[in-house]
C-alpha cells in the first residue's frame, strides 16, 4: 500500500450522521476485481442519476471539490457492512484521508490496510474545517502524520492514532509479511492450544460434497 507521511489536499464536506458502507458503495458493484478500480463507484447512487450522468448538486461533482483528497465526514462514518470496497472506492477516487468524529469499527480497520488515513477529529477541528470549507470551497489542509497534526490557515490541531497503525501507515507495510515472520511462534501456539482444547480441532475432515454439486437446482 501507498505510505502516508504528509499530505496537502482539498477538503470536501460530507457531513451526515451514520453514513453506511452501502451508501459509500452499493452492493451490486462488489463483485469487481480489485485491479479494475472502484473510484467511479464511490457514492454511486448519490453521485449519478438514472442515466449515469453526474448529479450537479452532489458535493464531489461540484467544481471546487473534484480534486478533493480529504473527506470531512459526520459521526459513525462507514458503519454497517464490512465491505472493504468502501475504502477501495475512496482510495481509487483519490482520497488519502477521512476526518470524522467517529467511524464504524470495521471500516476504520479497513482504512489502515489500504493507506487511507482515518482521523478521529476533535470537535473544534471539525468545526473549524467545516467553517473554512463554507468560507472558501476548495480550501486545502495539511495532514502531517509524523507530527499527528492537521493544519489549515495557520491553525493547527493534533489527533490521536495508535503507534502501530501510525508506523504501518508511514512505511506502507504489509501486515501479512510481518505476521509471517512470527510463524514459528504461531506453530508452537497452535499445537499448545490443540493440546488444551482437543475438541476444538475438527472432529473429522468435512467431506467435500461440493466440487461438482453446483447445479441448476432441482
Amino acid at each position: 500500500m501507498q505510505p502516508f507521511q504528509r499530505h496537502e489536499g482539498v477538503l470536501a464536506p460530507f457531513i451526515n450522521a451514520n453514513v453506511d458502507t452501502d451508501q459509500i458503495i452499493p452492493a451490486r458493484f462488489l463483485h469487481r476485481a480489485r485491479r479494475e478500480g472502484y473510484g467511479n463507484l464511490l457514492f454511486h447512487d448519490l453521485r449519478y442519476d438514472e442515466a449515469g450522468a453526474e448529479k450537479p448538486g452532489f458535493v464531489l461533482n461540484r467544481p471546487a471539490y473534484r480534486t478533493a483528497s480529504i473527506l470531512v465526514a459526520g459521526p459513525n462514518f462507514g458503519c454497517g457492512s464490512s465491505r472493504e470496497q468502501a475504502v477501495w472506492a475512496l482510495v481509487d477516487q483519490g482520497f488519502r484521508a477521512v476526518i470524522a468524529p467517529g467511524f464504524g469499527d470495521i471500516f476504520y480497520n479497513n482504512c489502515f490496510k489500504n493507506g487511507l488515513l482515518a482521523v478521529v477529529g476533535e470537535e473544534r477541528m471539525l468545526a473549524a474545517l467545516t467553517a473554512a470549507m463554507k468560507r472558501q470551497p476548495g480550501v486545502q489542509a495539511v495532514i502531517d502524520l509524523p507530527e499527528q497534526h492537521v493544519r489549515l490557515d495557520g491553525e493547527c490541531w493534533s489527533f490521536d492514532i495508535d503507534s502501530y497503525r501510525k508506523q504501518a501507515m508511514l512505511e506502507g507495510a504489509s501486515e501479512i509479511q510481518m505476521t509471517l515472520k512470527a510463524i514459528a511462534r504461531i506453530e508452537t501456539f497452535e499445537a499448545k492450544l490443540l493440546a488444551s482444547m482437543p475438541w476444538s480441532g475438527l472432529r473429522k475432515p468435512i467431506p467435500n460434497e461440493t466440487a461438482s454439486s453446483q447445479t441448476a437446482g432441482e
Partner: protein
Amino acid sequence: MPKTLFDKIWETHVITTRPDGASLLFVDRHLVHDATAQAFDMIREAGLAVRRPDLTLGTADHYANTAGSFDQQPPHLADMALRLLENARKDAFPAYGVGDPNQGIVHVIGPESGFTLPGTLIVCGDSHTASHGALGAIAFGIGTSEIAHVLATQTIWQAKPKLMRITIDGALGSGIVAKDVALEVIRKIGSAGGTGYAIEYAGQVVRALSVEGRLTLCNMSIEAGARFGLVAPDQTVFDYLKGRRLAPSGAMWTQALDAWQALSSDEAATFDREMTLDGAAIEPMVTWGTSPEQALPVSHCIPDPAAEPDRLRREAAEQALAYMGLRPGTPMTDVAVDRVFIGSCTNSRIEDLRAAASVAKGHRVKVPAFVVPGSGRVKAQAEAEGLDRIFRAAGFEWRKPGCSMCVAMNGDIVPPGERCASTSNRNFAGRQGKGARTHLVSPAMAAAAAVAGRLTDVRKLASEA
C-alpha cells in the same frame, strides 16, 4: 481476579501482544463465502496459500441464486458462487455450492453444522459474524485484507474491545421475540452506541431464548456498532449442539462439555458499561427510517423530526422520512407495504419460519412475499414439517437458500420506490435495491404485513383471526 466470559475466551487465544495493545489471536474457525473472492486474489498475488484449510469452511450465500434455475441470474453473479468453489478446490478446504444440501447463509450453516462451538474464536468477512457469539464464542466480522491475513496465517490482529453487559430481565410478552429485543436495544443505545465494545447479553429473557433467538440477538450487535455479541453457553446450547455433524462426539464431547461449563462471567467480574432492559416492556418493533436505530413499537406514530433537539439527528430523520416517503404523525399501522421478505442471517432459521407460517396459515397474501430459508437443511426441515405448503397456500413464494433480498447482491431486489417489510438487519437507503424502502420487523410481523398489506401489530391480527 474475576473475569468476564469474553476475557476467558480472549486470553486462551492470545499468541502475542504488541506494545500498542493489539493482540495476535489464533483463529479456530474461519468461515468464507462467495463475496470474498478478492481476498483469495490477494494471497495468490503474494504467492501464499490457505494455511489451515482444515479450519476453513466455505459456502455460497451472498450471490446464491434463490430462484429455480440459473438462467434467472446474470452470469457475472452466478460466477461468484462458482469462484468460491474454484478457490476451495485450489486450497483444499470444503465449500458448499448452490444446490448442495449443506449450503446456506454462512451464519446459519456454522451453528447448524456444529462448526461453531462455545469457547472458540471465529472470524468471517461479514459484519454479522457476531451471530456465532450466541453459542458462547468470540466471533467478529473482518474486511478483505484481514480475510487474506487469516487465510495466510490463521491469525488476526485485534485490539481487545471494551466490554458492555446488557441485561434483559423479566419475561417477554406474547408475540415478542428476539428481533424485537434487538431493535429495542439498538433504539436505546443508538447505531454507534456499541462502537468499540463487545456486548454480553444476559438476564432472564436471554436465558429463556432458544439458540435461534440468541443468534438473532447477537446478529444485530453490529447495528448497534458492536463487532462482538455473545451469550454464556448453557444447557440450551449444549442440547442444541449434541449430535451435530461437526460437533465433538464421544469422549471428546464429554471433555468439551467440561470446558464449556466453565464459560460464564464470574459474579464479581466488572464491565466497562452496564445497561438493563425490562423484557416485559418490549413491544413488537418496526423501523421507520434508514438506520436501525430509527425504530419504534408498532403501536406508535411516525415521529416528527422537529422534536429532535440534536441538529445532525434531526437532519438524518428528515432525510430518512423523505427517502421513506413517510409523514410525521402517521400511525405505523397505516403504512401500506408493497412487498415482504422473510429471510437473512437474522431471521431465516426453522424457528423463524415456524413463527411466520403460524401467522400465514389460513390467510392470503395481499402483496408479493418471499420466504428464503437460511440453508438447505432449514429448507428440508421446513418441508418435512409442511411449512412450505402453508406458505405456498397463502401465496408466499418458497425460495432456495441464500442471503437474497437482505443484501440484494444475487439479483433478488426490491424495485425502486417500493416499500418492503423485511426480517433482515439493515434498513439503509438502497440496501434492498436502489430506491427501496425497508421496514425491519420480526418474522411473525412480516407475515402479518404480507396478509394485511400494511404494517400490522401481529398481536391484533392474531386476535382478529
